[in-house]
């Protein structure tokens, strides 16, 4: 059982008649990477902005590091680093000057002395004296992470941080996030519309849709509760399909070469036995737990 770094209770946010968040309660465990998932317009950014004090909730409570956000912003923000949507900087200044200025107002004694260390950590050594306007999106993203870290915060909040990054940039970013958790013991709240990305890094997930909480918990527990996605390549697709449907009573999709269906993981040995007994030749059997499948199931079945 982890203690929560961020605890949100009964959060509501309305814009006129539109309810962006509805009775939302979430917990972000300390020292873990929490993935925040939801389709476009689900309320992810609104939730993150409420946590960061950029948007005032209509009602509800936000506790960060055991302090209420109301009345304790100064203390709390000393322990938070964030990137909201995209890393924004004063592009007419150099990377280092940006960090120096932000360190100056972060009310942290070690922020100034941490600057070079953070530049090195994110791999911008040698480019720190260049103006930010000459940086690529990926470099700005790294600078964004450096900006998050200069005051050594306990919590890092990243809203859609990989938007616009190339595949190489996404992989580097993912490695950096994992390193921040493992080496620096940071609590990370990460939202992304790329499900596989969350699946790779997150220990805990929160799924929201239409401003409401759909599901939250440890990622492995959530995925274990669901069926596996089975892909089969066999010699006789139509006979195999009929056998599976008859034996397990499930819906099976197929084309000329492959069969795909959902099956509880405990039934996989029985599936193999049945097909062998019916002398079906199995060329390939893949089973995977898909966050995408879970996510689609949860968000479409509400």
């Amino acid at each position: 059982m982890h203690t929560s770094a961020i605890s949100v209770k009964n959060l509501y946010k309305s814009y006129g008649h539109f309810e962006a968040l509805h009775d939302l309660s979430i917990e972000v465990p300390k020292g873990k990477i929490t993935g925040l998932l939801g389709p476009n317009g689900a309320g992810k950014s609104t939730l993150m902005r409420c946590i960061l004090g950029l948007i005032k909730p209509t009602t509800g409570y936000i506790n960060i590091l055991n302090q209420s956000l109301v009345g304790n912003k100064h203390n709390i923000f000393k322990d938070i680093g964030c990137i909201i949507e995209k890393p924004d900087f004063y592009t007419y200044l150099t990377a280092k000057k940006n960090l120096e200025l932000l360190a100056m107002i972060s009310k942290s004694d070690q922020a100034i002395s941490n600057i070079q260390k953070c530049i090195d950590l994110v791999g911008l050594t040698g480019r720190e004296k260049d103006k930010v306007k000459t940086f690529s999106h990926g470099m700005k993203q790294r600078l964004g992470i450096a900006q998050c870290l200069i005051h050594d915060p306990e919590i890092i909040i990243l809203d859609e941080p990989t938007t616009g990054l190339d595949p190489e940039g996404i992989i580097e970013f993912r490695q950096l996030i994992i390193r921040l958790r493992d080496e620096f013991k940071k609590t990370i709240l990460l939202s992304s519309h790329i499900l596989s990305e969350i699946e790779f890094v997150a220990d805990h997930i929160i799924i929201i849709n239409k401003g409401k909480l759909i599901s939250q918990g440890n990622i492995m527990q959530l995925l274990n509760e669901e069926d596996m996605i089975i892909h089969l390549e066999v010699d006789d697709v139509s006979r195999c399909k009929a056998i599976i449907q008859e034996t397990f009573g499930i819906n099976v999709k197929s084309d000329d070469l492959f069969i795909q269906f959902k099956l509880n993981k405990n039934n996989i040995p029985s599936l193999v036995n049945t097909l062998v007994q019916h002398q079906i030749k199995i060329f390939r059997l893949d089973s995977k737990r898909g966050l995408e499948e879970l996510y689609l199931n949860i968000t479409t079945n509400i």
Partner: protein
Amino acid sequence: MKLITFELYKIFSKPRTYIAYGSILIIIFLIEFALKASGEEYLDFILNTFKDSFVLEGNILNGYMVSFIILQTLIIQMPLLVALVTGDLISGEASSGTIKILLTKPNSRSAIFFSKWISGELYTASIVMILGIISLLCGVLLFGIGDLMVLKSDGVEIIQSQDLIWRFGLTFCFAILGLSVVATLSMMISTYVDNSISPIILTMAIIILFTIIGTMDVPLFDFIRPYLFTTHMIIWKNMFDQQLDFLLIWKSSIVLIIHIIVFYWVGWYHFKHKDILN
């Protein structure tokens, strides 16, 4: 103090800040050069109506006169130069997205707003002082000193040279106060929009509108005129009256200060409560 340093550093790192300083210096040098080259013809033209009534002797086109002419010319452009920077203080951060970083640092929105306002005021004061000091200094160096002849609609007033430095000082202070209203107004507008052009355009539109209302001799406007800040911004010219009307100067100063307080409060209240959505 750190927030003010932070804001000042940003202001003085932007090219647009130096557009204002550059344009002031260019205009000062152009006017002084033009007056040096053909100042006598210019004087003949403006003194045409008095030629037959007075005998004018001495160094009429002196440094004080030149500085006075520059002040009259540039005071019209100053609000634009002020709004160029102060209108960008909040909306510029909103359009570039840096407002999100700024507001997620451990500083209150009130402190951020105040530091931006103070920085805007310091910038405003700096451009007035540069205008004043450079025009006076260059004027005196190029044209020497002498009494100042001020043309009024009903005649001419001569202010003795030993009486002029403090009058110029008072004029610069009053110009700073008047332009502070412009700075606070554009900053207030800046809290409502997410681009840096709108506050500049809106501020100038308001000044032009108020100036039209203030100068049109329509009885309907007589009631509004005393409450418009533009009416009081031009009171600096009264510093060159033979007898200073201190009551008028105090009244105008109070009206301008009230405008600053109201614009500041509206801007601060909106900034403190606004949701950052972009």
